[in-house]
């Protein structure tokens, strides 16, 4: 492939790459640099790129007082529940849509895919009213439940199951295995990669979800971290070292998930847009 590159273009590309990468990394590095300062340095009239006194004080304050630990816990619980329930619900539905024969299957599948088209935002008012009637405002169930309907995940799993030769299922059925057993012991083990990819992407999306928790949560104790971070001015006043520390702590789990599982995250997002199965 090197043959198609000439030197001029390589230099242009290298410069553009370095400039863009620096621009894209700068905000996070600047936030990190801010979070490692004592508070007085953030409002100092003399500007420094790096902390003059390196300190973890801001992280200590954020984790030691206020609601940040509670918000992190809520986010972790909600994101895990959303991921587990979405995976279970979607795997079962995708298996039925892909491998089983029943009346109305295709109609039902098309109907489910309609949920792609209608923006979730359009459902907020009736969803809130329903949750209010069910008494689920400010509850974990209220935060989690509407997030488990994921036609995209079902679509991706179904595509994957469709590609598995039917012989596997037929052999298992002949041995007397129930559909549940076939899904659990035959299809699931063959789908490890795609299940992991979708689970990580679902986890990241659930951790980051802002809109629905914003609607359904009013109590400080029940906030997830993306929502809680918008309240931090009230919590800390304008203390930028602490604000940046709280922001980076809120980003840490998803940033780690991305860095550790980079391939699977990439694969999952591409699968969700239908570019790769």
């Amino acid at each position: 492939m090197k043959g198609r590159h000439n030197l001029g273009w390589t230099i242009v590309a290298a410069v553009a790459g370095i400039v863009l990468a620096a621009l894209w990394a700068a905000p996070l590095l600047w936030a990190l640099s801010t979070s490692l300062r004592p508070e007085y340095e953030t409002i100092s009239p003399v500007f420094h790129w790096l902390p003059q006194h390196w300190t973890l004080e801001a992280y200590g304050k954020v984790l030691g007082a206020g609601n940040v630990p509670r918000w992190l816990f809520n986010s972790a619980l909600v994101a895990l529940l959303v991921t587990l329930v979405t995976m279970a619900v979607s795997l079962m539905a995708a298996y039925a849509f892909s491998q089983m024969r029943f009346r109305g299957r295709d109609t039902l599948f098309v109907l489910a895919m309609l949920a792609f088209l209608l923006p979730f935002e359009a459902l907020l008012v009736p969803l809130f009213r329903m949750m209010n009637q069910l008494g689920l405002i400010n509850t974990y169930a209220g935060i989690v439940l509407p997030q488990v309907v994921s036609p995209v995940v079902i679509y991706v799993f179904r595509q994957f199951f469709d590609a598995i030769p039917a012989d596997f299922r037929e052999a298992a059925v002949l041995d007397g295995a129930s559909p549940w057993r076939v899904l659990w012991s035959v299809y699931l083990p063959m789908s490890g990669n795609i299940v992991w990819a979708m689970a990580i992407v679902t986890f990241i999306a659930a951790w980051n979800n802002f809109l629905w928790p914003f609607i359904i949560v009013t109590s400080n104790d029940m906030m997830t971290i993306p929502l809680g971070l918008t309240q931090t001015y009230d919590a800390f006043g304008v203390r930028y070292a602490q604000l940046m520390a709280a922001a980076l702590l809120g980003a840490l789990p998803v940033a780690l998930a991305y860095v550790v599982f980079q391939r699977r995250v990439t694969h999952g997002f591409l699968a969700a847009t239908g570019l790769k199965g």
Partner: protein
Amino acid sequence: MTSIHRRRETLPAMLLLAPFLVAFLLFFLVPALQTFWLSLTDSSLTRTSAFVGLANYATLVQDPSFWAALGNTFYFSLLTVVPLTVLGLVMALLVDRFTRAGAWLQGAFFLPFVLPISVMTLIADWMLQPTSGVVNYLLGMQRAWFADVHWAMPMVAIGTIWWTVGFNMLMFLAGLRNIPRELYEAAALDGARGFALFRHITWPQLRPVAWTALVLQLIASLKIFGQTYIMTTGGPYNTTRVTLHYMYETAFTQSDAGYAAAIATAFVIVVVLLSLLQGWIARRVGGRP
């Protein structure tokens, strides 16, 4: 499949589908129908009241606040859709070009996309502070960017571009890696180099991906709410109050669920119409296979 199988499988299939169907019904289908139904009533956030026909829509078409919010939404889309698509393509080309450094570039461009929205907005707010912000330091200014009617929306757009461009980069990268290498080798034998390769091979092959990215980006941009709500709360003077923000205020601060549902329905119609229009243009231009 024999008919015996067909009969046998209906019940187990329904059992497997049941959790999804219940959730789908409760959290999608019923609320979707209710949005439309509510838009024909005078309901509040907690009570369902009188059927008023199309009265909410009659009010809507004459409501300057609605049109202003829709205008702000379009302005944000104008500032983001094309830049995000073009920049995504440029980034993908860069990532694809360098073998080792490419992985680092990809990480740098994509990482912001996985961060929560409030992390992006907090960092943007800190960088754009009038007196202590790094942007003003570099420019030698003391501008309050989010309080400036001319600059508030562009700054929200820049924050959004930083935050989300990685996803478009990823789509283009997948597209680039799907292009058969033989095409380049054949073109190179014919003497094509540099930009000619991009123009005659890469771009024609990528065009379908570019249209997909544009459509997804347009829909995503029209759905803007969190960025402006957190960074500017719709100000200054409502110049960044977008459609979904107006819907949210109508429903949750004024408890006018009927009117909010009408705004939601109108919003869905706008989104669908614009995506159809874009699809139509794509076919006219011959971008889609």
